[in-house]
């Protein structure tokens, strides 16, 4: 299998005037392959978003190495950005632009061939069923509509790697289901997808491999079957609790 994402011994600290230095990401290493959905599972503040932001070149790691689609984030950040589609936990749409405008502008900004932009935009509008509200300002759309538009914006330049930070957070079951189906479709098209969530069921349902992250450390990683074997638990929730508890026990010892 072709390794599209390599992360080695990644570290990131923040300075907080009250708490002092906070280690948001602590020596994390993992890989992801072409046509795979890798899920980062952890509670709020575990370090998922910081890891994804470093992968998306939004932040510089203090130490460690990230390679995406064969490009190092520290050496060739622009090539990395050309190879990824990043979607933050917030829909992050320009409020006074319509979905059609946003998708078009992001195709242009990501250097998508100009002659093919119109066709690509219309394809995505049709694929995601955005047509009905394609010309309405984003600020007037529901959260679900915004999230779907955001996914369309993320993939408009057909990137090899997708980094999705809690893409179905705060959505109703129907829209979440739609988004899960889109993610599976994109995986089947050969995309590598890094997906973060604190929703156990969601991760279990759509991820090929899962990394459990807490307090900035990657505690365990593998397929759901691997994790079941390692912990002796069946449900994802129990697996997560067991992994976290065992880690805390080790620290105490």
């Amino acid at each position: 299998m072709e390794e599209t994402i390599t992360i080695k011994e990644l570290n990131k600290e923040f300075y907080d005037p009250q708490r002092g230095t906070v280690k948001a990401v602590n020596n994390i290493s993992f890989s992801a392959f072409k046509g795979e959905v890798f899920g980062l599972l952890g509670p709020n503040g575990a370090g998922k978003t910081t890891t994804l932001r470093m992968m998306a070149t939004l932040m510089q790691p203090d130490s460690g190495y990230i390679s995406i689609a064969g490009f190092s984030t520290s050496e060739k950040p622009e090539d990395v950005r050309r190879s990824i589609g990043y979607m933050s936990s917030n829909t992050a749409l320009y409020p006074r632009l319509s979905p059609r405008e946003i998708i078009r502008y992001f195709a242009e900004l990501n250097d998508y061939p100009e002659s093919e932009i119109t066709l690509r935009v219309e394809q995505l509008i049709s694929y995601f069923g955005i047509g009905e509200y394609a010309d309405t300002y984003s600020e007037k759309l529901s959260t679900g509509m915004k999230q779907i538009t955001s996914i369309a914006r993320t993939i408009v330049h057909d990137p090899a790697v997708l980094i999705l930070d809690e893409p179905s957070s705060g959505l109703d079951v129907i829209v979440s289901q739609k988004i899960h189906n889109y993610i599976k479709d994109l995986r089947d098209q050969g995309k590598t997808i890094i997906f973060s969530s604190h929703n156990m069921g969601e991760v279990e349902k759509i991820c090929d491999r899962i990394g459990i992250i807490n307090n900035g450390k990657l505690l365990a990683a593998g397929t759901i079957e691997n994790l079941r074997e390692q912990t002796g638990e069946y449900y994802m929730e129990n697996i997560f609790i067991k992994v976290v508890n065992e880690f805390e026990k080790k620290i105490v010892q």
Partner: protein
Amino acid sequence: MKTLVILYLKDLLRNKMLGLMVLLIPIIFYPLIYWGINQFLMVKAGFSDSRELTLLYTIENDEFLQLEDSLISVKNLILERSDNAAGGKDRMKLIVSKTDGLPFYSVILDSSNSNHKEFYARIENKLIGFYETKKKELVESKGFEPEYFDVFQIETRNSEGEHEIIRKMLSLLIPLLSVISIISAAAAASVEITSGQSEDRTAETSLTLPLKRESIIISKLLTVNIYALLAGTVNFVFLVVFIITIFSSLITGVSEDMTGFSWSEIFSLKIIMIALVSLLLTSFFVSVIFITASGFASKRKEGGVMISPFTAFLTYLPLVLVIPAIDPNIFIAATPVLNISFSLKLLIENNTDWIFMTETAFFSIIWLVIIYKLFFPFLIEEEVLLGYSGSSLTKKIKTKWSRWKKRLP
């Protein structure tokens, strides 16, 4: 970068609340502008006690030479007898001729110069006194009825033409209005494009584009500049209409006559071009200042708080303190934004003070270097671009300040 500027600009221009705010904010300054004009006259008058003035005078008839003795008692007035010299910026001119056996005075002064007006008021008392003495002598010697001589008139003329006062007023107002209209638009747009984008998280999406961070900051600067220029021009037009309609009465009161004055005397191509360049430079400097200041905040409200002291400083400094009252000096030349407005004022007055202009250019270059070396690296910091870290504004300032300090030499 062009696409990014179009995207940012479209989002800003469609923001109705922002547009309304940008158009309404300068209105609160309208009364201040009125006050500023009065300051222009009053503050200058305040300095006149310590100022001197040369009065060139011509007395055509020797029997009125005693007037010299009367005028000599006016404090700080330097008398200089001259039959040819004209009045001017630093000098008033008095011509005393004889009409019907009595003195007739012609005074040539700069009516927009409060120093001239102050001295004129002092001289006028002496002139009236001398006239009364001569009238009494004439009445007594000829046995005339005193009432016949009650009509007393001093002819005053402006040294640089009758519309000089209007030109001087507008040389004060045009830079002030440029600064105010640009500042309000740039302030609002900067908050929206920095803290607003951090709040909406759209800052993140633009940072994952295959562009350099510098390009994103430059795009933001360009967008704020274009927006500020557009909004500033609209505001400027409104304000000019306001001046024409409301201030005409004030101008008429001060000057001799408004009739015959053409606005094209002020809004010439040269002035419009200079005003545009001035607007461009001003908007560049203020957008850098505002983008940096609002970069400390990750929410619109906080951004507004961060820029308010800069807005007040940049607006009130030229409005109240400096432009109306003080002559060009090196401190004005060293203050960004203010120096540009002041240069514009001088150019409109046709007063090309090359030393001041050179100083302004020199300090503007220094500021650009400072911005490039100190502020620009700070602006592309991930914490500023994304508005991360602590919960309260104070915490954010502390965190960002500690990061920034590390960059200082």
